């Protein structure tokens, strides 16, 4: 074989003659991008992405068909090449129609893999669903109860009937796993020797502790209160998040191995300097925003006047307060709603929320407003308190002076000012007033020591921290959650803390941060108006499942949970409503990858706007979405059985297919190789239900457990969940081939029928009953020892399996031969 010498991008390369530039570059580890290349199978309809500039040639050359020559000088990344690739990609992308990520996923502040966990629920894989949630959110119980559900507002199902009840599904899987005592087996990295202090044991502190512990750091939480939970325990009343749920959630997080120091108040019991001195490598401030903004009206009597956080804390601690029969709550935020509902439960007969704007302008989630109203809370809108000075004129203890408001001119942001209507004063007679005007982390200055005074605060009383890195003005001290962002939802605290944990890890380990998700996204339509209704052809109306709820006349009598949670059947039905917008080829899509790499801005150059073809689910294992097909033809050429046909009725002026047909022939054996060769998500495995996005996918090489061929395969694993099986074209004996069992036959691994506990039958005729290992081993040990003692070793036998490993078979026969003393050992398939 003769060799040639050439240069690619200035690198001198010796190569076999007869090879293409693309092959030679690949062997020299120079990546030339391509969308249509299949080894040894050239195409009539090239993608032209692999073009290169060859010295002496006027035209750009396709590296996949151009053979190397001696002395050739190749430029694979010249500007001309890049521009041509960008042009080609823009043309190809223009007809690609689909969503990379689902709108729910994009809208979730936690970027939770919503579509993924819903898909697990639909299949009854609740444990897997919860693991997927917990990959990014360790507080599924609380968030599943109180999340504002940003995701549901963007759910495309709204265009058919109603959004999917996403959050109820999250709560369902969390509750299901709790009820079934599931150990999620979430591993943590090897110890790093780094110590991290977390100040505050609320949602943000617990979240940061969880992620940092998983990274192998030793974490200690310092909590001022006698119990962990923060806002979950002292902010949300029991009817929203029951105490035992908080306990369970907190304990589940602590089981990861986290140190806790309770009743330790920062600034009083310890300072940042103390933490530094005791060897903490970094500190995370997550004290929440628990200081109420004072109710600043002229007032003669402070008795029977409370601020919201204090009030809720006292109630949650079990304090009995004399609240009278009538109460006013000042403010329209979420906390105000909980205060009002708590007052109802405390026996107050008339609870009025006073708010200076309209109902729709309330900062509280409208769902919470409605729930309060259902329980009998009244709303006095367009009214603002002006004083509490007046003496009561009847049996009530307080007289709240009010002035009515009207809307003024809009400001720059379009928000209309509120103006008092002169002379519109009136008053409300009440026994109790609770003000809920917002919270801050610190009132005034943070005290304690030198470092504390160096901590910069924002005007609103929050810690000043970089929203991306969570760094404060003090080196090694980070802040997140409400303490930095102001009062927000639990999921937002979780996100803030997760991001902070990532940065703290990078800080203590002096390593790179995890990369931020790329925002590149093909979409079927950014806003609802952009989404073609043709997307939903053939999908009938199925309304969402109704959450079982205790009626208000009953639920307001106690603090038990109001919403009872979905049953398993409801959860499954609800999960099946998901439209599965996001692409399950997300992680393998070459088109997206190249668009990102080559900086093609599809928002400018264009993408498909409406579906031209129905999605074809007639194949037993593969779903075909021709709207995503870019006609690269890799599937057809990769098929070893010649069982797939991709045709176009005609081509448009840009040489793109019109009237596309993707057909499986009768001889298709469903091996799925075409899917692995698809350059987009046009072909997809039916059982690849979870879009794999961003972090945490492991690839484990192993051997197929079916026939004796011993195909080598790659298990794609997320957490403890097997997502998919693929094969490496470079590794024998199968060289990228697998059969239908190899690629599709692995759902049994997470099947609910799996045996999960030892069983014994105490006496013949009795049923099998679950026991702990200890008891099962004793039971078996006694039975075998008895037989051995009474009848000798040959009364025992072992039947081993061709399914088990070599090592297991060796150990098994050794047990019988060396341990028991018999050769009675065989396997079923020895012939």
């Amino acid at each position, binding site marked *: 074989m003769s060799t040639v010498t050439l240069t690619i991008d200035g690198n001198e390369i010796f190569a076999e003659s007869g090879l293409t530039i693309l092959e030679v570059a690949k062997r020299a580890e120079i990546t030339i991008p391509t969308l249509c290349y299949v080894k040894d199978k050239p195409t009539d309809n090239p993608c032209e992405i692999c073009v290169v500039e060859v010295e002496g040639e006027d035209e750009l050359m396709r590296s996949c068909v151009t053979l190397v020559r001696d002395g050739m000088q190749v430029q694979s990344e010249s500007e001309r090449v890049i521009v041509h690739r960008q042009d080609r990609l823009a043309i190809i992308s223009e007809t690609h129609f689909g969503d990379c990520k689902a709108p729910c996923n994009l809208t979730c502040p936690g970027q939770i893999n919503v579509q993924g966990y819903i898909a697990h629920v639909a299949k009854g894989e609740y444990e897997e669903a919860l693991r997927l949630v917990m990959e990014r959110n360790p507080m599924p119980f609380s968030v599943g109860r109180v999340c504002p559900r940003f995701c549901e507002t963007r759910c495309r199902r709204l265009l058919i009937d109603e959004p999917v009840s996403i959050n109820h599904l999250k709560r369902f899987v969390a509750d299901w796993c709790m009820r079934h005592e599931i150990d999620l087996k979430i591993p943590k990295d090897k110890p790093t020797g780094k110590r991290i202090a977390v100040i505050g044991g609320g949602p943000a502190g617990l979240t940061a502790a969880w992620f940092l512990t998983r990274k192998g750091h030793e974490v200690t939480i310092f909590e001022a209160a006698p119990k962990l939970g923060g806002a979950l325990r002292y902010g949300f009343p029991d009817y929203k998040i029951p105490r035992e749920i908080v306990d369970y959630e907190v304990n589940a997080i602590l089981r990861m191995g986290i140190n806790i120091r309770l009743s330790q108040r920062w600034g009083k019991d310890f300072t940042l300097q103390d933490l530094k001195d005791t060897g903490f490598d970094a500190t995370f401030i997550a004290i929440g925003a628990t200081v109420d903004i004072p109710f600043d009206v002229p007032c003669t009597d402070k008795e029977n006047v409370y601020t919201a956080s204090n009030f809720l804390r006292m109630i949650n601690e079990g304090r009995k307060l004399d609240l009278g029969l009538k109460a006013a709550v000042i403010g329209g935020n979420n906390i105000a709603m909980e205060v009002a509902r708590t007052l109802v439960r405390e026996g107050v007969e008339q609870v009025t929320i006073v708010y200076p704007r309209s109902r729709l302008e309330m900062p509280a989630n409208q769902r919470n407003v409605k729930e309060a109203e259902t329980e009998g809370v009244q709303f006095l809108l367009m009214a603002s308190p002006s004083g509490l000075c007046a003496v009561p004129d009847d049996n009530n203890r307080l007289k709240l002076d009010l002035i009515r408001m009207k809307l003024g001119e809009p400001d720059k942001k379009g928000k209309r000012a509120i103006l008092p209507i002169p002379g519109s004063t009136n008053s409300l007679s009440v026994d109790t007033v609770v003000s809920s005007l917002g919270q801050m982390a610190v009132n005034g200055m943070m005290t304690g020591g030198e470092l504390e005074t160096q901590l910069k605060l924002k005007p609103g009383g929050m810690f000043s921290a970089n929203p991306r890195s969570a760094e404060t003005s003090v080196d090694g001290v980070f802040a997140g959650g409400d303490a930095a962002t102001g009062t927000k939802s639990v999921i937002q605290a979780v996100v803030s803390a997760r991001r902070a944990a990532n940065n703290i890890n990078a800080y203590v380990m002096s390593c790179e941060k995890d990369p931020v998700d790329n925002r590149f996204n093909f979409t079927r339509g950014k806003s609802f108006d952009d989404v073609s209704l043709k997307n939903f052809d053939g999908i009938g109306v199925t309304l969402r499942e109704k959450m079982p709820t205790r009626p208000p006349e009953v639920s307001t009598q106690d603090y038990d949970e109001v919403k009872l949670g979905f049953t398993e059947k409801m959860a499954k039905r609800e999960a099946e409503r998901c439209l599965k917008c996001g692409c399950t080829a997300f992680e393998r899509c070459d088109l997206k990858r190249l668009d990102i790499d080559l900086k093609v801005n599809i928002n400018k150059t264009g993408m498909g706007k409406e579906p031209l073809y129905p999605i074809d689910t007639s194949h037993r294992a593969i779903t075909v979405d021709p709207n995503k097909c870019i006609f690269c033809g890799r599937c057809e050429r990769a098929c070893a059985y010649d069982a797939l046909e991709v045709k176009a009725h005609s081509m448009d002026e840009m040489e793109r297919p019109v009237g596309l047909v993707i057909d499986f022939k009768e001889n298709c054996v469903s091996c799925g190789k075409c899917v692995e060769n698809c350059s987009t998500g046009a072909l997809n495995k039916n059982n690849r239900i979870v879009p794999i996005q961003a972090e945490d996918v492991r690839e484990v090489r*192993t051997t197929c457990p*079916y026939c*004796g061929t011993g195909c080598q395969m790659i298990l794609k694993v997320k957490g403890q969940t097997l997502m998919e099986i693929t094969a490496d074209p470079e590794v024998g004996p199968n060289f990228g081939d697998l059969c239908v069992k190899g690629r599709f036959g692995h759902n049994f691994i997470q099947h609910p029928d799996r*045996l999960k506990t030892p069983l014994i039958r105490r006496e013949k005729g009795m049923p099998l009953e679950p026991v702990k290992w200890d008891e*099962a081993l004793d039971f078996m040990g006694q039975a075998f020892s008895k037989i051995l003692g009474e009848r000798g070793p*040959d009364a025992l036998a072992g039947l081993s399996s061709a399914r088990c*490993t070599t*090592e297991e078979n*060796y150990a098994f026969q050794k047990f019988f031969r060396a341990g028991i003393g018999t050769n009675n050992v*065989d396997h079923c398939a020895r012939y």
Partner: protein
Amino acid sequence: MTGLVTVLGSGAMTNTINGILDGDCMLVIGSNTTETHPIIGLRMLEAVKKGSKLIVADPRRIKLCDSSEYWMQQRPGTDGPLINALCHVIIRDGLEDKQYIEERAENFESFKDSVADCTPEWAEKITGVPAAVIEDVARTFAQAERAGIYYTMGITQHTSGTNNVYCLANLAVITGNLGKPGAGLNPLRGQNNVQGASDMGCLPTFFPGYQRCDDQAARDKFAKIWDCSVSDKPGLMATEFGDAIHDGKLAGLWVMGENPMVSDPNSSHVKKAFEQLECLVVQDIFLTETAEIADVVLPAASFAEKDGTFVNTERKVQRVRRAIAPPGDARDDLSIINMVSNRILGNRDGDYHGISDPVFHTVPPFASEIFSEITECWVAMAGMSYERLETESLAWPCPDKDHPGTPILHEERFPRGKAWLSAISWDGPAENPDDEYPFVLTTGRVLYQYHTGTMTRRSEVLENSAPAAYLEMNALDAERLRLADNEMVSASSRRGTIELAVRISDRITEGLVFIPFHYKEASANLLTNDALDPHCKIPEAKVCAIKITKLETV
């Protein structure tokens, strides 16, 4: 395996899977390769495209027949006469590899005499394969430069199973097709680690590495490695367990990862025996039919949840790597064996109490340590280690750490020296059709299911593709019984009855029916015969006589 050991001194596929592409001719007999070994089947189809000639011998017109040069449709259970007739033609026409026979084989003359009467015409009467086809096939096979033989249970699951293997070995030897690429005698293993389980001595008469229990030297060796005395008494074969239980000789049985209640012929007999055990322990990933009648059920791990190796059909030792944790309280099988050993043999040190592995709960010794011990026991694996297996693909024998492994066996010599050409006469199947049971039943697999279906039937794509048992029948037979496609019938043998749907097919001949054995609701092995091959005690799952009656719909 017994057959191959006797003739060649070693019982495994002699050549490699991808070597199929180097061959000029393939004889596939008793193997529905595209369904049971799809990737090997794919290589065969690729070889055909490259010009290799494919000969299929199978009672059913399996998919490979569509690409074959010749299809010999022998009657079930008549493989021996067919192969002997091939040998007859080859020797008669002087096409045998004389030099090879001279150098590498013994007993040729007496073998030659034994096939002297096995003319193609004689074979046609027994097998139904036209004499002219036998003549053509014999010449094609003998004249190929590299001809490989590929077979599976269709050859072995007969009372004459061992003899059938002898016959195939004779054919390979006289044509000089052992010890070179693209040829060989290749049993395709039906399960992922049949080879490894056999290699490791889960066999009643062999220690690991096929070292015989009745050999004093072998016993001394293992007594030393294991630091205990070992028994020289041959153990019971699995197929003898049932009778031993009935006779009160066997009282405790530990079944690891098998489901004999569905996989074994005459399975109602197996059930009766197992129920008489004092203690039946079943270790599995699902509550199988066998586990349902157990006294102790131990929850085990799937392949994705354990570390170790599988030995594939071409003797390659390949790593299995843990990707995820077993569910709930389930444990990997090795840890279970270690826990049981510790409990029964009293070695509490290694007991699981002391282990702090909250995710995987593994109990030592771990797979890598066991593998090192294996390499001490058997010279064929002595050169292997987990480190080497990370980057190398090693087929045994691999006697030292610089050895590259042995993809092709017998290149220089056979382990027993020369190959023994055995004279084989033919007895016919144990059970033949008669007036009462007029159909011959043969059993097998389908692409989408596997074995007793515990895994595949719980994997959606596979189960939806082949959700129910069926009885494949020729259109003429169906017409005679007035059966329409998909109609329900009852199929009975002397041992049992099942109900299932008829599938009319032109891939099967008159008088013969086929039932896949994966389905417990219509378990083919309730019908099959547990008559055993006298040599290796394999049951005759591939032929029995049955009757078929239309089920009256209510």
